[in-house]
């Protein structure tokens, strides 16, 4: 019972934060002629209620595709239609054909914000609550803390309730999908995920892990028996859900093709605006957009994306497990975000959702990633005058995570799941120790009068550059301890020393400094 009250309190807190953020400005407020995403959504309501279905995705005298033409799959259109019916009931001026362009008023803003809140409340929030309640092997307190942190994730709140979008619908459906397939309700899960894809085509970023996980399950059950039956059932579910959503558009071939053209605008270029992915970063040094022809850009991005997500997907197919599924979701979504074509900065939300799901397992890195992901959308948020809510929600999220997960205490290599990574780095890239040596010399030379460390004879080195104690950043921790112990990092004798095994003075130094390097690398 107490769990119910606490969970209700958490949900209400989440709703309060969402509502207060929604009191701020939205995308394109008071900026004619094009306005922004808010006007786009209003315009889609206008189009869907006033025009017949056949004209929704086509350019025409009543539907100018240059002015926020529909470029999401049919489910978004149906959702807009539903909202438009409600709008018509309240005030038809909001969705009158042509005359309602650029309509802005307090009442209309209230209506639009309310539609986002209701969609969130019906789809995303129950999924989060159910996900947290179904987590195994953790206490009630931790489940509720987990729900609090996920619900307070600033990126989604700021984009949906500030900038104005309906990401909570597609992410909510995707989360229902994750829930379904993780707990062996495969058909419902795949149905939910199909709805997610049919709401926003960007959910395709998550499609490969779903496919591989379900395929892996079928293989595990044996392709000659139950597995085959499952496969057929899944295929039928997917096909049926797609047909159901696209039915009005399957009547003519041209309809289907036009919708696909609107969903996948391949002639728009490798990226637009500022987005924190590889291509945009690379273009600082080399302007690939201008140098390479279009189809080469397409092929390069396809190759890189495919190659980067292949290992995780293959592993998932061979060894399907809910935990592996979550991590593969993170990995694939991140591959798509970093290397894919025409990625928008808001697509980081597609990576953030899976990261929220692994918050419990690697709290430190997940919290860090989620904070950075919100920061990466800052230019967009500043344009919408959302600086104050951004700062406040980011701090609130950080406090929630820090209080719930004690993130500064679980920073050893094992807890960060970085052990095998660190071992491989030290084994295959011994040159990595150069930079750490330089850094260590700098610190030692500048800050402390101590000589360079020699081995204390406590055996293998400790990788605890990021180890314990909440009141220190790793750098400080090392140096505070130095006063008492010349080799302060021999705190955990976990990892194997590297190639310098033979030299006792060498190997502690190297693992210390390489740990320091890895940590500084991650910090920056």
């Amino acid at each position, binding site marked *: 019972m107490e769990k119910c009250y606490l969970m209700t309190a958490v949900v*209400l807190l989440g709703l309060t934060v969402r509502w207060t953020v929604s009191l701020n400005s939205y995308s394109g407020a008071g900026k004619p002629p094009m306005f922004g995403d808010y006007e786009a959504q209003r315009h889609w309501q206008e189009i869907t209620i006033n025009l017949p279905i056949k004209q929704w995705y086509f350019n025409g005298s009543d539907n100018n595709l240059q002015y926020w033409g529909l470029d999401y799959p049919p489910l978004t259109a149906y959702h807009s239609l539903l909202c438009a019916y409600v709008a018509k009931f309240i005030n038809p001026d909001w969705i009158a054909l042509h005359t309602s362009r650029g309509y802005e008023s307090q009442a209309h803003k209230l209506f639009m914000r309310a539609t986002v809140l209701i969609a969130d409340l019906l789809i995303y929030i129950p999924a989060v609550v159910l996900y947290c309640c179904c987590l195994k092997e953790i206490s009630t307190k931790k489940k509720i803390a987990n729900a609090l942190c996920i619900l307070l994730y600033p990126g989604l709140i700021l984009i949906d309730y500030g900038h104005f979008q309906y990401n909570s619908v597609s992410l909510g459906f995707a989360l229902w999908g994750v829930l379904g397939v993780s707990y062996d309700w495969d058909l419902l899960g795949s149905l939910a995920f199909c709805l997610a894809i049919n709401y926003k085509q960007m959910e395709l970023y998550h499609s490969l892990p779903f496919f591989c996980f379900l395929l892996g399950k079928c293989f595990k059950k044996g392709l000659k028996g139950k597995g085959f039956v499952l496969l057929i059932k899944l295929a039928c579910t997917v096909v049926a859900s797609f047909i159901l959503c696209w039915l009005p558009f399957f009547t003519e071939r041209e309809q289907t093709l036009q919708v696909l053209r609107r969903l996948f605008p391949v002639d728009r270029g490798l990226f637009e605006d500022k987005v924190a992915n590889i291509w945009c970063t690379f273009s600082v040094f080399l302007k690939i957009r201008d140098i390479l022809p279009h189809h080469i850009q397409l092929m390069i991005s396809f190759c890189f994306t495919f190659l980067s997500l292949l290992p995780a997907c293959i592993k998932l197919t061979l060894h399907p497990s809910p935990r592996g599924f979550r991590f593969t979701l993170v990995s694939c979504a991140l591959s798509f975000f970093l290397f894919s074509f025409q990625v928008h900065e808001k697509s980081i939300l597609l990576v953030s959702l899976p990261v929220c799901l692994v918050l419990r397992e690697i709290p430190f890195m997940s919290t860090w990633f989620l904070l950075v992901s919100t920061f990466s959308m800052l230019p967009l948020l500043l344009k919408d005058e959302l600086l*104050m809510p951004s700062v406040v929600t980011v701090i609130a999220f950080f406090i929630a995570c*820090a209080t719930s997960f*004690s993130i500064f205490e679980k920073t050893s290599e094992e807890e960060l799941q970085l052990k095998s990574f660190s071992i491989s780095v030290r084994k295959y890239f011994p040159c990595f120790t150069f930079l750490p040596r330089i850094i260590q010399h700098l610190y030692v030379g500048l800050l402390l009068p101590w000589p360079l460390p020699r081995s204390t004879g406590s055996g293998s080195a400790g990788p605890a550059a990021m180890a314990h104690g909440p009141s220190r950043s790793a750098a400080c921790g090392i140096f505070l301890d130095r006063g008492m112990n010349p080799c302060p990092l021999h705190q955990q004798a976990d990892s194997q020393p590297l190639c310098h095994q033979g030299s006792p003075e060498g190997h502690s130094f190297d693992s210390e400094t390489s740990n320091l390097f890895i940590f500084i690398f991650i910090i920056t």
Partner: protein
Amino acid sequence: MAALGVATGGGNWFSALALGVTLLKCLLIPTYHSTDFEVHRNWLAITHSLPISQWYYEATSEWTLDYPPFFAWFEYALSHVAKYFDQEMLNVRNLNYCSSRTLLFQRFSVIFTDTLFVYAVHECCKCIDGKKAGRELTEKPKFILSVLLLWNFGLLIVDHIHFQYNGFLSGLMLLSIARLFQKRHMEGAFLFAVLLHFKHIYLYVAPAYGVYLLRSYCFTANKPDGSIRWNSFSFLRLISLGLIVFLVSALSLGPFLALNQLPQVFSRLFPFKRGLCHAYWAPNFWALYSALDKVLSVIGLELKFLDPSKIPKASMTSGLVQQFQHTVLPSVTPLATLICTLIAILPSIFCLWFKPQGPRGFLRCLILCALSSFMFGWHVHEKAILLAVLPMSLLSVGKAGDASIFLILTTTGHYSLFPLLFTAPEKKNLFLIGWKLSTSLAWGLWKSSVNLYSLSPLGS
């Protein structure tokens, strides 16, 4: 950021709660603000631009200075920070001036002065006996009290949306209560005297302070059966208390006494011409009285007992601030309300005098004084319910019976604050959420405290 995480991650839930509610207050910056915003801007302008002799005479704006001098000095201090935000707000002629910087400054000043409230809550938590608490954080009385006080929705609505400075004033009151609990009576008396000169609404609870300090501090010992021992009276203590009150009052009213402006100051502080009920009515006895009067007059008109031409046109319920005559029932004068209030507080005062139960008894008396004054006072604001709700939180974590009363009081009290936000429904929605949050939290916490206290014998 790391330091922040450390403070909260190290198990310091109090900091997390305080920081969390401060962040929520920051999110409430763009919400609706009432005319009280203009009131305070006007006072910043008056205190900054005009000499002291003009403060209580200035009437360019309809929102004249009607708080005691310490509050005026507080606004004066704030105005020196305000000039770095926006010089224009300090111009007395700039009526209804509300630039974004003005809004930011005013909102941040409320958030910043709430630090005193946070400190007071911290001190109150020290007065709570947490030894019988369970191991769960949510069952610890200190945690429950901190949540009930720091996240009090009434205070959030009134201070951070409607716009007022009740946070630090309530902080002063809670701090003085905490000092009395800690047996630091002189400090408690001093803090209360200062508080009275910040906002004279705290006169509602002055009888409780007066009687308690006289009975339990000036009389240093009791007879074994608890009744008064007359020969233990300490003149020294009485004189020192009197001196404290006198010095504080001298500091506050001294300048105005010297300028011969005391009558003007008092007429501003106690505007009896404002009418029995405030514009949006406190839900007190007189509201019911007026409603009954209205019903009777309607019935009377229907049954032709009353002559329509003799009935005054102005309606009690129209939201106007003015004096009013009742139609059927006898009209109420300020003296009548005073007498009713005194009669209502008499039982609790008697109990405090004849059977003092230490600080807890004082707290009960204080709450009863606040509630009686709310119920029968002249021109009571609905915000005055906070005077009763906040101290009641302290009692509610002590006994299950008090907790159930608190639940009813806080729910109805906060609900009665809703009319303060009469603009777009979006604000009401925020309210609904906030009220539900506070109700569910209060319910949840009460439930856990009931479980807790059912395990131990219920004593006072």
